[in-house]
């Protein structure tokens, strides 16, 4: 069991000027389940591969426990890794795939057998032990890959988008299974994904990465409630947050964010009067999550109205995503599935002002509380 410290990590690939990862600092607690999330090419897999020792570090230091591992070979780092494409040895049976690492460590045969069978039992792949990987389905292969990592009882588990090759249904069940596995093993898990549902549901903490730089590290709920910048606000949450260019204006009873004819009040709990005064007349980006735009409600201190023509109403069964344009700005509202809203209609939506976010237009940093 071990903590992981990444100190001022930079990775520059030969022949490129822009670093893949730049001055990255990350402290992962022992037994923590941390998620590295970000769009494709943001450097999250590079970070994971540097922890694994599969990628050289250009600058900085990585510690596992108290040990500096910059120059330690992958095999001596006491880690296990699950790859996106499973990376099962095709010429070996499931049993041999799982036993391979123990065999290399010259573990007694009896012990290997016990460990492999125990892992197979947990993952429900006992009946597959004699099969070759090509005779397995995607989900089964993923389980074997997990099993291969488990048998060694490593101090750190690294998972590189392990569910992205599975179909949606299987992904949901494997998601729960990996979470349970973490609870059961009590090991440090570092999990890379671009899927924010996986990030939100599985991790103790999430590190949101963009262009090789960590944007915010926090618990899933805090990331959702208090995004530190525009990128995190837009990235976390599905459907994504509505981001609207607006101007802070003085209103009769405080301040509001105005765009076109629409005005959304800024309550004191979102932005203090002092901050509002600083930004008066200046452009800001207003962030409103679709779930806080409802179809009903009247204009009040807490609820302000947004009106627009519905472009598309996507029914998801329990809920409906309504795409509409308000003052020329495309927005999404999340309303109950029973809502009668249809495309083509002109609808007034009520915005929960207490749940809005505001970001500095230039720096992209949050200015709301």
């Amino acid at each position: 069991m071990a903590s992981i410290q990444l100190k001022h990590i930079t990775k520059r690939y030969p022949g490129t000027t822009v670093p893949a990862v730049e001055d990255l600092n990350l402290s992962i607690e022992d037994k923590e389940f941390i998620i590295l999330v970000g769009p494709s090419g943001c450097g999250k897999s590079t970070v994971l591969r540097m922890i694994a020792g599969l990628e050289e570090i250009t600058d900085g230091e990585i510690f596992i426990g108290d040990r500096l591992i910059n120059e330690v070979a992958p095999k001596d780092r006491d880690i296990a890794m699950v790859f996106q494409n499973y990376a099962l040895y095709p010429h070996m049976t499931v049993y041999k795939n799982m036993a391979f690492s123990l065999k290399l460590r010259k573990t007694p045969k009896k012990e290997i057998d016990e460990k492999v069978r125990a892992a197979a039992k947990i993952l429900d792949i006992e009946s597959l032990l004699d099969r070759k990987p090509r005779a397995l389905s995607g989900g089964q292969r993923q389980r074997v890959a997990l099993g291969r990592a488990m048998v060694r009882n490593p101090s750190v588990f690294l998972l590189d988008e392990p569910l992205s090759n599975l179909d949606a249904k299987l992904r949901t069940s494997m998601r729960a299974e990996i979470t349970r596995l973490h609870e059961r093993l009590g090991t440090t898990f570092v999990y890379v994904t671009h899927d924010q549902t996986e990030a939100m549901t599985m991790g103790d903490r999430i590190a949101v990465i963009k262009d090789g730089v960590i944007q915010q590290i926090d618990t899933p709920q805090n990331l959702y409630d208090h995004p530190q910048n525009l990128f995190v606000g837009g990235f976390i949450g599905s459907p994504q947050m509505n981001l609207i260019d607006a101007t802070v204006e003085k209103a009769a009873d405080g301040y509001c964010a105005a765009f076109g004819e629409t005005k959304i009040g800024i309550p004191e709990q979102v932005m203090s009067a002092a901050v509002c005064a600083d930004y008066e007349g200046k452009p800001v980006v207003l962030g409103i999550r679709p779930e806080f735009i409802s179809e009903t409600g009247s204009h009040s201190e807490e609820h302000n109205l947004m009106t627009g023509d519905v472009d598309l109403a996507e029914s998801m069964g329990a809920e409906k995503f309504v795409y509409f344009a308000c003052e020329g700005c495309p927005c999404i509202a999340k309303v109950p599935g029973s809502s009668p809203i249809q495309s083509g209609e002109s609808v007034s939506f009520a915005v929960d002002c207490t749940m809005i976010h505001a970001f500095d237009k230039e720096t992209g940093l949050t200015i709301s509380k």
Partner: protein
Amino acid sequence: MKVKKVLNRTILYFLVALIIVITLAPYLWLVISSFSTKIELMSRQIFLIPHNITLANYKDLMSKDFIPAAMNSIIVTSSVVVISVIIGVLAAYAFSRFRFRGKNPLLNLSLFTQMIPPIALIIPMFIIFKRLDLINHRITLVMIYLSLVLPYLIWIMKSYIDVTPKTLEEAAMIDGCSRLKSFFFVVLPMISTGLAATVIFSFIITWNEFFYAFSLTKTLDAKTLPVLIYDFNSKFGANYVMSATAGVLASLPPVLIALLFQKYIITGLAAGAVKE
């Protein structure tokens, strides 16, 4: 419709039979000749089975220079196959997996050597080996054949290694392998079909090579089977029976190896040809 189908079938079978005959007839004649007497072979009759089947030619051949020449062939060929596979596969791995200065020029250069016809190289080679006092040595043939076989082997094996997922090696390295161990435990088993195909390839090229062996060997210290077979045609006339008998025996190892690994040759050639 049915008539047309039958006709198509017939034509197809006829063509296949024709191809088989054209391919096998020379070899069949070689075998027949080796069991015939010289007199019968020289007669103007055409026969499939000799009237007097004789093993005398084989007995005769054994008492001549066949065994030392066969030993030369076996030593030279097995040396070339073993050395070329070891060097070739490791070089192919390096070309496939590592970044280093001059990688592409080196790779192309290795193939460029194959574009020069042997006839243009033989005189300089002869002079070089003469100065090194290496004419009529088996090691000379081994060196030359390695230079013939290695470029192809590197290119073919590189294309196999290129399509082997890198993550498998990475998984092995995390599981506890060094780079070399991951190569032996993971990469090598995955490219085994390609390896079998290249073993056959370098075996056949080396075993059958005549031109360099003829030019650079003089005595049975280094003479290989193709040169020996040629030697049966002296200025006193061609000894067809001996040529045929030695030919049959010389053809057995490649035929056996090809039969044994024919599955690998087909999958090997197909898999190596296209980068998937």
